[in-house]
């Protein structure tokens, strides 16, 4: 079972939910310890709550073209096939732009003169180690200044091979662009964390559309609830999104989070609530599969 925690809007509490869900499942003795993956490689922060001991680290990169000027005939085929304009033939100079390159290798395949070789361009690292309650913690970290998060997220997920019955919790990046899609792809269920504000609702709509596009069943967690916001309930009802949990706007919770304490520790009653939520999700999955 792979559960991705996403939101659309940033700062709604994805990491708060994802880390406490993982802790709550880890405490349950009957199941294998979960795998936690921080996919927010541009600003990973789940380590603040799960306090991993990051024992393993390995670089991740993409293959970028290197042009041999002596062999290049400036025919321009490489520039023609590059969808991202990461290579250009400018008079008698062929120039590669590593920051625009997606590493597909088309330029090298197309070069009839074999003037293009590829070299690994490191863009970040993948780290791994045990964390609180024995959770298998993994995260990716994109180097500062690098624009592309997706290759790291893909590599992170490629290395996740859960044992039967082992749950994988994915903490997705904010937004609804490529890195979010990369983190969501392959998930069995999406937890969409929102806040009861017009901004939160606006971005929840977008995130729900991505979920629909990818065909992943989703449910909503309302965080920092402070009074009624009927528009949110209305949207969830009309979109068939169950509201699985509501967390009140409380100073004590905010203070605890600011100190790097997981929600499940600040308010231990949430352990049972998250376990129940997990049961609800798996139950709905089983029922759905039974109907297929």
């Amino acid at each position, binding site marked *: 079972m792979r559960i991705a925690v996403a939101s659309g809007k940033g700062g709604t509490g994805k990491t708060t939910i994802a880390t406490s869900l993982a802790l709550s499942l880890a405490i349950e003795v009957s199941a294998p310890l979960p795998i936690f993956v921080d996919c927010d490689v541009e600003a990973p922060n789940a380590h603040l709550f799960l306090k991993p001991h990051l024992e393993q680290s390995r670089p991740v990169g993409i293959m970028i073209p290197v042009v041999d000027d002596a062999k290049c005939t400036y025919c321009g085929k490489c520039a023609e096939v590059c969808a*991202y*304009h990461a290579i*250009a*033939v400018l*008079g008698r100079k062929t120039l590669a732009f590593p*920051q625009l390159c997606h590493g597909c290798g088309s330029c090298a395949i197309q070069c009839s003169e074999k003037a293009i070789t590829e070299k690994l361009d490191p863009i970040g690292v993948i780290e791994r180690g045990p964390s609180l309650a024995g959770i298998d913690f993994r995260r990716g970290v994109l180097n500062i200044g690098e624009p592309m998060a997706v290759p790291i997220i893909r590599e992170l997920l490629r290395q996740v091979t859960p044992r039967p019955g082992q749950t994988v919790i994915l903490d997705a990046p904010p937004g609804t662009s490529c890195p979010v899609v990369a983190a969501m792809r392959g998930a069995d269920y999406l937890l969409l964390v929102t806040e009861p504000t017009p901004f939160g609702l606006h971005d929840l709509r977008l995130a729900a559309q991505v979920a629909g596009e990818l065909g992943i069943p989703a449910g909503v967690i309302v965080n920092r609830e402070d009074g009624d916001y009927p528009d949110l309930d209305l949207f969830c009802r009309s979109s068939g999104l169950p509201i699985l949990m509501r967390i009140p706007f409380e100073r004590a919770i905010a203070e605890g989070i600011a100190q790097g304490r997981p929600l499940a520790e600040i308010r231990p009653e949430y352990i049972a609530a998250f376990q129940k939520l997990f049961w609800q999700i798996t139950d709905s999955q089983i029922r759905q599969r039974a109907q297929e």
Partner: protein
Amino acid sequence: MKIVLSTTSPGLDSTTDPRFGRGAYLLVVDTETMRWEARPNPGVNASGGAGIQAAQFVADQKADAAISGDFGPHAFNALQAAGIAMYLYGDCRTADEAVKRFKAGTLERVGAATRAECDGAHHA
């Protein structure tokens, strides 16, 4: 001499477009005859690499110079590799005015990129 300018519409009377990669048109001008040809800028709607596409166009035209309000690092590197000189509009309002000032030698020549690239977050 052939030069290329970023403009908002086709024609020498067009107002200057300060954006090189994302300006509406690229105006190719022969400074001797003042004959011109306009092309919609190829990268105007590209998700990334607009400056490189515009630079590629300028290089393919075998132009000697490019004039715009602004050259990002990718466009700058590409134009520099192609041996194309870069000049800034300054307070020029029309293409015609910019060509005249270019010929008079009163436009500022660029020796380094005039801005940082966009953060690229939306390209991934």
